């Protein structure tokens, strides 16, 4: 079984669902180290006291305007009873994906299979997600619990005040709105490019190219450096739409 990163209980009403939290994502980004250009030796970081100008190893503590000890910061974490109480249920389609931050799989905890399956099936049937609070690594998160295929997943959520509202953006208004004809052509173009969403159709080809670059350099090959391109501003919108449609029809 996959290692869990947290164990606890989800509750709604008096119903307790023992769960384990597992990571649902894995990064495949290629990581580099910092090295000293001169001798290729690894760079290490040293913490230096800005007053004494000497390295400080263990006597470091946190502070902003005031000094805080770690346990004082932890005191802000909130309830540590290892439960996630679902306080409200909402229509899943009402929650814009912009609110979802990180995602985890939930697994059934010890002797919790029946309760897990019950919550899963009831949420699936009702089209709802449960909203609650989760204390993880000394920090409280707002979370949503929802079914995804045969699993329950948990999303940590962004708070409304963390999102930049669209009306705060200074979007220039065009001198006239797009004409009906332009809208109609754009809709046709959208429809002609319409596809079913297949996540596996997209590959991170850049990751492969970085791997390839590393392999070529390891063999001592020289890498050619091409010149960049510039984007062009749009000219006649209707003409571009027409040409795009024409191109797709032919």
């Amino acid at each position, binding site marked *: 079984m*996959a290692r869990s990163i947290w164990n606890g209980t989800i509750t*709604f*009403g*008096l119903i*307790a669902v023992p769960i384990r939290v*597992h990571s649902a994502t894995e990064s*495949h980004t290629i990581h*580099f*180290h910092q090295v*000293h*250009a001169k001798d*290729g*030796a690894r760079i*290490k*970081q*040293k913490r230096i*006291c800005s007053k004494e100008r000497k390295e400080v190893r263990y*006597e*470091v*503590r*946190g502070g902003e305007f*005031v000094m*805080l000890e770690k346990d004082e910061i932890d*005191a*802000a*974490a909130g309830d540590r009873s290892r439960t996630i109480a679902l306080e409200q249920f*909402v229509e899943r389609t009402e929650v814009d994906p912009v609110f979802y931050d990180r995602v985890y*799989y939930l697994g059934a905890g010890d*002797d919790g*299979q029946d309760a897990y*399956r019950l919550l899963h099936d*009831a949420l699936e049937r009702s089209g709802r997600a449960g909203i609650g609070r989760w204390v993880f690594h000394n*920090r409280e998160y707002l979370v949503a619990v929802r079914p995804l295929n045969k699993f*329950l997943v948990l999303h940590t959520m962004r*708070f409304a005040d*963390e*999102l*930049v509202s*669209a*009306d705060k*953006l200074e*979007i*220039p208004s065009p001198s006239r709105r*797009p004409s009906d004809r332009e809208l109609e052509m754009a*809709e046709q173009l959208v429809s002609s490019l319409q596809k079913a*969403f297949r996540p596996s159709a*997209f590959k991170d080809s*850049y990751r492969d*190219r*970085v791997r390839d*670059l*590393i392999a070529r350099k390891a063999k001592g090959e020289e*890498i050619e450096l091409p010149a960049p391109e510039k*984007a*062009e*501003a*749009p000219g*006649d*919108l209707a003409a571009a739409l027409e*040409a795009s449609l024409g191109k797709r029809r032919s």
Partner: protein
Amino acid sequence: MPRALWSGSLSFGLVNVPVVMVPAVRDLDLHFRQLHAKDGAPIDVQRWCSKEDVEVGWDEIDRAFELDDGGQVIVTDEELEAIEPRRTRTIEIESFVDLSEVDPIYFDHPYYLLPASGDDGSARAYRLLTDVMARTERAALGQFVMRAKEYLAIVRSHDGALMLSTMLFADEVRDGNDVENAAQKSHKPSAQQLKAAAAVIEELSGKWEPGEWKDRYRRRLRDVVARKRKGQTIKAPKPREAVPEMPDLMAALEQTLADMREGKSDKRREKQEA
């Protein structure tokens, strides 16, 4: 106006809209500085060479990839740029999908796209794309490169603006095969249990009002800082009452419904009170 993180163009057939990308999320977290416990002086972080034991400036640092045999390959910024896709400053829309078809699990980080130039042509092309996607409830998919990483992006209409979210690639979402999801038939709930659970969910249901859910952690942390400043001592809060053990599912469902009928358990108020 927030700082642009990326600039380029969004292309859609032969229509090309020059855009800049700005963050859609702002950081409201409290940040701390590390201090030397002895004298309260801020800690500086310096980069030192592990071989020579001298401080190393940014301009003397290279990027290295460690090979399996212990050797390493130095990769320069220019070389990474050289392998970026040819049309690197473009988000080329490859297809449109029904927004409802894309599970939120694929959404990663949100940004806004804004017209890059004030000219009327760009403003109109931007508006056209925003309007059309809002009307059709469709979203555009495309790939682009930002800071030496290729992203899959979904662009959609959001309150009259174009919102771009980076997305996870399919192989970045684990299949969950090793997660206990109680799929065996023996764990299937009875019709009676399912009905009772649905009734509890219904009772606790409300409209999603994101603004009602406050970041209590942020508030408590500010509070801790404020109290500490006044010289008060900080104690951890007392833990919330544990949920009574009710191992029998049906009994727990029935008791919850009974409590709700008596109005004992109006859980919806909890989040506002805190």
